[in-house]
């Protein structure tokens, strides 16, 4: 006897609302710009069998990874050792975790003494110790990357475990912010526990369990209905991370995607061996790339829970950059993870030409910096930057936007300057950086940080500065990114994984890549080219040489005759 449709829908929405409330609580009470303003965190609810059931607003990268991390953390600690009012903290990458900055808290939900499930939140902390401020850098092994926290209790029966709290904070530079963020994480889980409890109180545990079971079955049914519509077959592609921070040999990723009516298998076993460099993705990160890519191919309205994940199979080979093993450095894992989404999309582009964009920014593109300040103590700052999105079958790629599993906001200039001894000199689009196409890629963006006081330790952890995002079906690649240090009036190119000391008056400038174009540039509607020229996004010279469109700049019109000649 299945639940009536009303009760089902009510419980399903109430559980999502519970995780949404965790989101609000965490975001509004957090301290660091990365969490409170940029929203680099996620919240979720799992049932007692550790099946993912409901997810609030989130960074998609975290969703796929938490499905791995939460069960691993709970099993690692032993569910029998976790009682009401407890919270487990962890950031351990092996097994089943991600990079150290992402610290996760898991709390059990009990009802009348019985375990019902777990709420969890994961947030990217601005610093977790390690070799450089903001805990990013071209590290050789995980031990350089910061404090490693295996699953341990941070809260026991509602009380903060001071020993663990002190031990963790002792490893961390920005103690004030991190302390505030951790308190916010604890409060968010408490909110989640209360709210899930309220749902059970209202409907009864038996009914909620039945609704959860049905939700999983329902989601699987809908997912399979969606898979039915996809072009079945096996597709493959390869792609490269441009630079590992040390070697000029680029880093090969390979994906084979098998779309079947009964499931999807991602095989990344042919990716190359792991490196002693920040380009290694953990299994959980790779899994999250595959989950994200699949989710994009199906109805966006479909809920994300175990019923979705169970149709997904991800095969990796331990010891590769797509499933690295201890003690590999993992800090750059999300950079590789995002590139893997690009490779998966590329593999599907012939079969699903309307379903995937041309190459996008496809990297996280971190900037991390910090220094000791007489007033602020040891301060740290972290930000990631948008870039061009790829052109699509019927529309241009948007300018200056986050791609794939990453959807973090930018740090407002005024908030940054108020909080930290840094000035932002410019924030603007990079003109002419788009990959040309019938539908062009988006423009990259430029952001320049000036350090008036210095010295500051600055780390670039990014990519895409050697090859721009690829075009599709005759579209051109976007312009590659540039990372530049300006000192004494001279520009010095920085590697995409590098740490440097910036002296007083020095500037670090990010110019992110443009997105790839879709279709041949000569097929672009001349009126769209004209609009780009009027808006100054594309120069008249480039309109002429790349798009074959002659623009009369003074009169703001297309010279149609000349354009016909150019395009002939």
């Amino acid at each position, binding site marked *: 006897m299945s639940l009536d449709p*009303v009760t089902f829908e009510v419980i399903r929405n109430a559980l999502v609302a519970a995780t949404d*409330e965790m989101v609000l609580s965490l975001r509004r009470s957090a301290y660091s710009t990365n969490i409170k303003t940029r929203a680099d965190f996620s919240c979720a609810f799992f049932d007692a069998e550790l099946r993912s059931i409901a997810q609030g607003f989130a960074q998609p990268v975290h969703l796929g990874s938490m499905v791995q991390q939460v069960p691993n953390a709970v099993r690692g600690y032993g569910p029998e050792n976790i009682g009401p009012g407890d919270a487990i903290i962890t950031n351990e990458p092996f097994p089943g975790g991600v990079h150290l900055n992402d610290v996760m808290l898991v709390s059990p939900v009990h009802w009348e003494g019985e375990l019902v499930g777990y709420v969890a939140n994961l947030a990217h902390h601005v610093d977790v110790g390690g070799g450089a401020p903001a805990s990013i850098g071209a590290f050789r092994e995980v031990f350089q990357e910061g404090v490693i926290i295996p699953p341990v209790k941070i809260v026991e029966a509602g009380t903060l475990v001071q020993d663990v709290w002190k031990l963790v904070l002792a490893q961390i530079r920005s103690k004030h912010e991190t302390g*505030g963020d951790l308190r916010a994480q604890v409060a968010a889980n408490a909110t989640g526990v209360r709210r899930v409890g309220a749902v059970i109180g209202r409907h009864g545990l038996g009914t909620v369990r039945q609704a959860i079971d049905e939700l999983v079955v329902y989601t699987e049914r809908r997912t399979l209905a969606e898979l039915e519509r996809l072009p079945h077959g096996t597709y493959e592609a390869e792609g490269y991370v441009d630079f590992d921070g040390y070697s000029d040999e680029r880093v090969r990723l390979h994906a084979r995607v098998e779309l079947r009516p009964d499931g999807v298998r991602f095989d990344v076993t042919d990716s190359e061996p792991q490196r002693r460099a920040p380009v290694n993705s953990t299994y959980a990160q790779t899994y999250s790339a595959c989950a994200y890519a699949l989710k994009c191919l199906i109805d966006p309205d479909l809920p994300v829970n175990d019923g979705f994940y169970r149709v997904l199979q991800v095969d990796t080979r331990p010891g590769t950059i797509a499933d690295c093993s201890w003690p590999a450095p993992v800090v750059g894992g999300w950079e590789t993870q995002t590139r893997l989404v690009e490779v998966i999309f590329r593999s599907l582009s012939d079969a699903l030409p309307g379903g995937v964009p041309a190459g996008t920014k496809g990297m996280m593109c971190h900037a991390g910096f910090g220094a000791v300040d007489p007033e602020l103590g040891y301060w740290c700052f972290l930000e990631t930057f948008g870039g061009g999105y790829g052109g699509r079958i019927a*529309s241009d790629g*948007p300018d200056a936007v986050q791609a794939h599993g990453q959807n973090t906001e930018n740090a407002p200039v005024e908030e940054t300057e108020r909080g930290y001894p840094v000035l932002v000199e410019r924030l603007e689009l990079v003109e002419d950086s788009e990959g040309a196409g019938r539908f062009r890629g988006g423009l990259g963006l430029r952001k320049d940080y000036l350090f008036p006081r210095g010295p500051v330790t600055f780390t670039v952890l990014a990519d895409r500065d050697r090859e721009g995002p690829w075009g599709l079906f005759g579209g051109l690649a976007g312009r590659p990114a540039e990372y530049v240090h300006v000192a004494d009036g001279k520009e010095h190119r920085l590697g995409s994984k590098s740490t440097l000391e910036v002296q007083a008056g020095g500037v670090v400038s990010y110019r992110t890549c443009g997105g790839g174009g879709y279709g041949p540039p000569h097929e672009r509607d001349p009126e769209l080219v004209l609009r780009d020229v009027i808006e100054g996004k594309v120069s008249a010279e480039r309109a002429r040489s790349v798009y074959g469109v002659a623009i009369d700049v003074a009169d703001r019109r297309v010279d149609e005759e000349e354009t016909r000649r150019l395009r002939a």
Partner: protein
Amino acid sequence: MSYRLGIDIGGTFTDATLVDEATGEVRIAKVSSTPRDPSGGFLSAAERILAEAGVAGDQLRYLAHATTVATNAIIEGNVARTGFVTTDGFRDLLEIQRQVRSALYDVHFEKPRPLVPRQLCFGVRERVGPDGSVLRELDEEHAREIADALGAEGVQAVAVCLLHAYVNPAHEQRVGEILAAELPGVEISLSSSVAPEFREYLRASTTVINASIQPVVARYLQGIEERLSSSGVEADLLVMQSAGGVYTAEAAKRRPVYMVESGPAAGVIAAAELGRALGRLDVISFDMGGTTAKVGLVQDGTPTVTKDYQVGSAAHAGVGGFQFSGYPVRTPVVDLVEIGAGGGSIAWIDSGSKLRVGPRSAGADPGPVCYGKGGTEPTITDANLVLGRLSPANFLGGEIALDADGARAAIEERCAAPLGLDVLEAAHGIVEIANAAMGNALHLVSVQRGYDPRGFVLVAFGGAGPAHACALARDSGVETVLVPRSPGTFSATGLLVTDLEHEYTAMVLARLAETSQEVLDAAFAPLEEAGTHDLQREGTAPEDISFVRQLDLRYVGQSFELTVPSGEPEEAARRFHAEHDRAYGFSAPEEPVELVSVRVRAVGRIAKPALPVLAEGPLPDPKERRPVHFAEVGGFVDAAVFDRYTLPAGVRFEGPAIVEEYDSTIVVHPGFAADSDVHGNLFLRRT
């Protein structure tokens, strides 16, 4: 004889409410909205109600207006050709926005198109630092060149937002002067005047919206004023602001961004004021119309207000997280959770064979199937009709005959048959799914913000609200539902009971503990001076002016401020800790508290009209009895149907029952009883 007139323009209808100031007697009228030229609906509603009441234009002493004209201008892209001037190096603020996507898993997402095209965005050479110090002097010659360029582009308005102008507006003001001198007739909006607070994109967006709707709004208000004055109306036209309180049309023309949520605010204000008149200061307002339902909260007589608002973002079927599908506005807005569950919201079956409701709406055209105007997809209204809760013959006083067979057939075909349910189960499911979504919205404005809904009165209004109020109370634990008279036009009455209000803020940014009462007084003084000046100019007598002082506080390092009543710094800190605990479930009294801004609401009191008084009498006979479906009692039961206009004060009857009036239908569920009070309000409580 003197009267007050309120005109509320909604998406479907324009409502007029006329109150006799002496007796409190209320008269209402509804006319179709005229989206192409909303002033047409305004004037025909005003003319109709005045003619019906036999009231002359010069008998109006007070005239207030709520309108969606500002929001619609943005949504429809009907904005002025606007220029944007910011600090050199930042001209792309409006293009870059927050660098995020509005949809996570949709590779075809679009960013909101900037309201100012890039060729009209300029960076002027100047720079102010975060502490207000000048890092680079303003290049006035450059500002003049920019003015020339904007002039050549034929802009009608310019928004200026320079970095850190909230702390030192000197450069911004100077740029404003130069633009005004070089561009006569062009409206200039300065961020330091429109929204003086930090975070440049949010401030810029607010300023750009103000600038870009200014010509449209000014023209609209001017047109109405001229027509009114030619009809002999002498009263000033007042406009409802997004956070409640009215301002003069003159002020509205300067700062139109303060009225983007004018209509929804009127409903919350009406609920708050009714609660206050009845001695119930804690109120949840529940306004369900044709396309959405809006839930707001009033604590201690004051509506909660937010500054996290976006114009033009999409409606949702449920409560969600953060959205970036619109344009942020940082002026205060009543804190409403709005979801896509109105009478016209469409019920459908998803690919997993589950019944869903909204957020798509059949709107007014074609409307629900039962309107017989070509709608084929079943809606909440159709479901209520099939359940017998609405009368086919008495919708809008019988002006629209409802097609019950059509509604039943549509639910049967589109919902019941695919799910293997009977048509009543499906109709009941549609209504309850909508109720659950509204329950989540209610939860979000109450429990999630730390308020226990059980202590609040649920004021139900909008055409569809009273049909769903008992179920919402049942699900949320609310003990008392209050249904005002004429719920369908209740928002318009909010226009008649509000005060003149202006809000002023100034950034301070100091450790609270390091301030003192003297420091706070000094910060408040210029704001209150400005308030006195503005209110007196609008004709408020000095004895009717009062101020509400508030502080925006946060823990050092946080980004989201909480607003608390001002007081001695220690007392304010205590209030802040308590408020933080209420809002987020924890506080940190050992942590330093930062004072971000001081905030003054200058209030010009306006005398309130009396509430009407009804005589007591016996319970009248029902006008009919009909079968109404309630799942909690197993199906159709015989229910009394009362005509609301015949209900005297002091009567009580138990559910199941239906109360019909011109603009709404009240459903009293089994297990609830209704009591009428001396003003004609109906209270619904569990028996």
